[in-house]
């Protein structure tokens, strides 16, 4: 095994050298993606199940593409088409999948800790593709890869994360990963959407987005869930845009270069203006491509070693 942990459940406590190994490997696979034939035989004969208990479009497509580019055999399993609706327990679902002799499971689940629980029921490698409001480690890795691509390093970078921190697994994994890699993190959002104990993780908190723009090298703008509007959490979309939106006017008043990121899907005109998202400072589509490369690297490093050739791109 090329990484210290068998599974990728989260970035809390993850070794810095392993994060660096994943990012370095991801850059190699990124070269593969720029070739006319974007496929290597690295995971030939490896069977991977994409186990999605929650809707996902981009994360699942990204994983599927990564698996296909690596020549793995993949099966998709989503809760809507599964026996879960018939009341099958999580344990039974897990054990059934295990019985079918698969090598790895990529799982998304609405409950924090579900991937950890899965590792207790099965022997296969488990990769967390998002567990509720806990972690989304592959998203954080692709975000860090994108920052690395832009700045050539992570150490010492100043990163602002803006939005609904309380309900964001993207934020939590980014916080863990960035701090491990030596970056500084400031969180920004409505006070009621920032967990009261978050500072104990080693981050700064601000409610003034203009201050954060002034401070940061890059801003990671989170999607503000429309479901949160009108639940007393965010008064309205226009209020949110006025107080926390990354608008063109706001960006124009700050005469500085700043890198703009977004994990998608975007609410244009709410947390980010369309012109900002499409502008020169945004690296949002690079993130998407790096997402495939990062996931190829993670799958290769965790499931590789079965195939004897085609390891190097």
């Amino acid at each position: 095994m090329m990484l210290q942990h068998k599974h990728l459940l989260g970035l809390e406590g993850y070794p810095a050298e392993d994060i660096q190994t994943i990012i370095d490997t991801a850059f190699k696979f990124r070269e593969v993606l720029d070739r006319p034939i974007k496929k290597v035989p690295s995971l030939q004969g490896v069977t991977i199940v994409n186990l999605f208990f929650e809707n996902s479009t981009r994360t699942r497509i990204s994983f599927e593409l990564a698996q296909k580019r690596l020549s793995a055999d993949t099966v998709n399993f989503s809760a809507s088409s599964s026996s879960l609706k018939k009341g099958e327990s999580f344990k039974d679902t897990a054990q059934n999948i295990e019985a079918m002799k698969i090598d790895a499971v990529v799982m998304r689940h609405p409950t924090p800790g579900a991937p950890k629980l899965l590792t207790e029921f099965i022997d296969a490698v488990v990769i967390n593709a998002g567990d509720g409001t806990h972690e989304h480690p592959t998203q954080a890795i692709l975000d860090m890869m994108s920052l690395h691509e832009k700045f050539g390093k992570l150490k010492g970078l100043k990163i602002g994360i803006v939005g609904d921190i309380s309900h964001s697994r993207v934020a939590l994994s980014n916080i863990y990963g960035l701090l491990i890699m030596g970056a500084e993190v400031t969180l920004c959002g409505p006070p009621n959407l920032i967990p009261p104990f978050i500072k104990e993780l080693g981050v700064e908190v601000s409610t003034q987005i203009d201050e954060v723009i002034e401070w940061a090298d890059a801003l990671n703008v989170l999607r503000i869930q429309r479901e949160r509007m009108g639940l007393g959490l965010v008064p309205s979309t226009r209020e949110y845009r006025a107080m926390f939106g990354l608008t063109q006017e706001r960006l124009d008043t700050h005469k500085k270069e700043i890198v703009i990121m977004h994990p998608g899907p975007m609410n244009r005109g709410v947390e980010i203006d369309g012109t900002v998202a499409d502008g020169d400072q945004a690296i949002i589509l690079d993130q998407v491509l790096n997402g495939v490369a990062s996931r190829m690297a993670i799958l290769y490093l965790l499931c590789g070693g079965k195939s004897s050739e085609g390891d190097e791109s």
Partner: protein
Amino acid sequence: MKIEKIADNLVLKNGTIIDPYLGKTYEGDVWIKNGKIAGVGNINIPNDSTIINCSGKTITHGFCDIHVHFREPGREDKESLQTGSRAAMAGGFTRVCVMPNTNPPLDTPESINFIIKKAEKCPIHIHPIGAVTKTQGGNDLTEMGLMHQEGAVAFSDDGLPIQDGAMMRIALEYSTLMDLPIINHAEDECLRAEGVMHEGKISTHLGLQGNPDLAESAMVHRDLELAEFTGARLHVPHVSSEKAVHHIRKMKINNEKVTAEVTPHHLFFNDEALRCFNTNLKVAPPIRTEKDRKALIEGVLDGTLDCIATDHAPHTIEDKETTFDLASFGMIGLESCFGAVKKVLVDEEGMTLESLIKLLTVNPRNIMGFDSDLFGEGIEAELIVVDSDQEWTFSREHVQSRSINSPFYNKGLSGKVIHTISCGFITNN
């Protein structure tokens, strides 16, 4: 664990007798004749006696747990009065009060009578607590007077906190008619929201929805004010937070009718233990921080918290071996209780064994109005023999409950119950 009928003449010989009622500790024998105390101290041992050598052991009152869930009627797959009795005896408990959140709930005189009748066949004393409101719905008072006549010893909608302050006031006012305690699981449901563990640093790390200490302390404060206003007896169950201890301590100065309990698990664990997503530690109210745990210990030491109660809450494997959001709240606690609290309060915090035993005997008995002079001649034997120095590791073999949802497995405990004598039976644990 074996349960046998006790011999006609049974002598517990050469033990250290701790009498928590008289507050005396001395060496001696206890003679039990036909299930009743026939003599304590230096006994002329009858010829046909069965003798248990208790040298190096402690002989004391059987423990009393005023907060257990035995799931009967309705969920006998989790526990029954019979299996719960075995779990109790394994932990040294000879008397328990069962909570009414069964299916159907104990909200009528007839259902109270059902428990009383079934309990007659059990090897321990089981007292039903009646529901405060019909179906535990929080709206409509139960027939408390008739339920009391059938044997209800207190009233509680445990598990379903009484949210409506006016309803709580009415219940407290009405309860003064019987002068029985109202036990309100103190949790503001709106503040608790979807919380599954204590809201703090650890819940932030795990991304689990937090249940703030305020959800408890705000409700405890309301109940304390209502208790003072109505003059009723309020018992606060399973206190979990520093803030709630603070409120109770303050209010007790002027209101001696307020009592409170603490569980072994809130004294033993802090929320760091949930880092591994162990659903056996998912409990209501939640395990809180080390600071809260220390405040609970202080509350026990200064008398703010009157007694220990386990909140023994059996659940099936399926209820617990699942994702954290779906897992049921609660854990079993009777078998591990003494070893856990003796370790924390005596070994670590320097409390005397005598004081600890009071928290498990006379103090809970006083709250429920049970007789406490258990070494008196002619009293039915309700005693235990304890090896208070024994260090042991809790494991599956120690569980007598029908359910196995304990977070104490592989934990080192201190002090073990060797024999429990109750209702004419004796165990060999």
